[in-house]
């Protein structure tokens, strides 16, 4: 009974943050994919400069902590260069997208390279141009291979959104933390409910991942 009462008390507080969590998640996902595709395609470019520059981006953002990247974007860079992002949403979304875009670009690159070489050869024999080969033959096949991993990363991005509470964005974790600091005994209920919140939001993504796996299994082998 006590627990249920506590939940009734905690639930509406957390709900106040759900908008922010979902907004950050949606924008971060979109931009992660955009960065992933751009960087992934650059990594298979013929131009060494493009390839080299992109791999520097990928390695830096994969090799350092997301939280520190977030703090750099929101606190450090504005101070150093006097220009920067005073918009928390933009900083949060940018940090998460750059970080996950770097990871996901490896999936894009790997999938493109995993398409059978015979496909490129057949397209050359049909005299398709380099960009036609990528657009019509290679990419559609590579894309199917990307789907399962892309789904996995969506779930990870959702969980990463909780970090934006650290730059003062009022997401569900932020509201939970406030509540706990004013009412210490509520801690177990708050964090239990937070887990449930994230899990429920992840459910459709898990389902999407499964769907992606099915699609990628279908029709790739010739």
């Amino acid at each position, binding site marked *: 009974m006590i627990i249920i009462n506590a939940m009734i008390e905690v639930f509406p507080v957390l709900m106040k943050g759900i908008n922010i969590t979902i907004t950050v998640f949606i924008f971060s996902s979109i931009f992660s994919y955009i960065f992933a595709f751009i960087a992934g395609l650059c990594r298979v470019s013929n131009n060494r400069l493009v390839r080299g520059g992109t791999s520097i981006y990928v390695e830096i953002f994969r090799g350092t902590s997301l939280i520190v990247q977030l703090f750099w974007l929101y606190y450090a860079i504005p101070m150093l260069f006097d220009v920067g992002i005073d918009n928390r949403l933009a900083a949060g979304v940018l940090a998460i997208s750059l970080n996950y875009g770097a990871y996901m670009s490896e999936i894009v690159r790997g999938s493109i390279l995993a398409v059978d070489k*015979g496909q490129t050869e057949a397209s050359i024999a049909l005299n398709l141009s380099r960009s036609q080969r990528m657009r019509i033959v290679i990419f559609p*096949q590579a894309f199917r291979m990307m789907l399962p991993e892309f789904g996995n990363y969506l779930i990870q991005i959702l969980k990463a959104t909780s970090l934006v509470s650290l730059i003062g964005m009022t997401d569900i974790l932020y509201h939970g933390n406030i509540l706990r600091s004013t009412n210490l005994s509520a801690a177990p209920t708050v964090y239990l409910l937070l887990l449930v919140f994230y899990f429920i939001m992840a459910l459709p993504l898990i389902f999407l991942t499964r769907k992606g796996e099915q699609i990628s299994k279908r029709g790739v082998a*010739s």
Partner: protein
Amino acid sequence: MVESVKESNSSNISNKNIKPIVEYKKVHKSFGDVEVLKGLDLNIFPGEKVALIGPSGSGKTTIIRMLMTLEQPTSGEIIVDGKNLWHMEKNGKLVPASEKHLREVRGDIGMVFQHFNLFPHMTILQNCMTAPVQVQKEDKESAKKRSIEMLEKVGLGDKLDNYPNQLSGGQKQRVAMARALVMRPKIMLFDEVTSALDPELVGEVLEVIRDIAKEGEMAMVLVTHEMDFALEVADRVIFLDDGVIAEEGKPSEVLEESNNERLQQFLYRFRS
């Protein structure tokens, strides 16, 4: 070797004035330290059917892959219809060909592969009509019509909307041939097109090649292990050994009358 080339040209092509459609001039090709082709001189004439035979590693597949621009020669020139394939002129100097130049010169060449290489995400019909529409800018309706005709010709008119993974190996290879033929090439290359097939499916593929060969106007280069087929279809058989042309001539001469010891050994292994 130069002599033998001249000889075979005159023996196979009655009119000596016909210009070759493909000329290999002193073509060398190495993969790392291994030299696969050691100065190949070879002319192929319009409409001519040439069978390339030889032990594995003798460079026969490399010959046609270089013509399709899938491999670059280490040195030497390949001339297609009077145009240098791998080099182009720029400010009076010969420089390595650009993608644009390669596309211009290889437009008349088609190829069929050992492993079919159909596009798995497209239907049979899409496989055939994509290149005419995208490359030759043919309008969709006419490309579709010609693709359907071609697929009917290879006996797959009832599979238009199937995907490649719904077909047998022999059917896939017939689609691959239709796909290449829709582009109306002047030169068709066949890279061991029956090697990946179950024995009972080889016949249907050979039959299609036989039909294409009968039509005559297209030059065909076949890398093959089907000796009887080479004997039947080819105007000229070339035996490659250790990176050079070791024997060439009319199929009956090469396959039945040659005294070349290496060729004898090679044929013996096939017939036993």
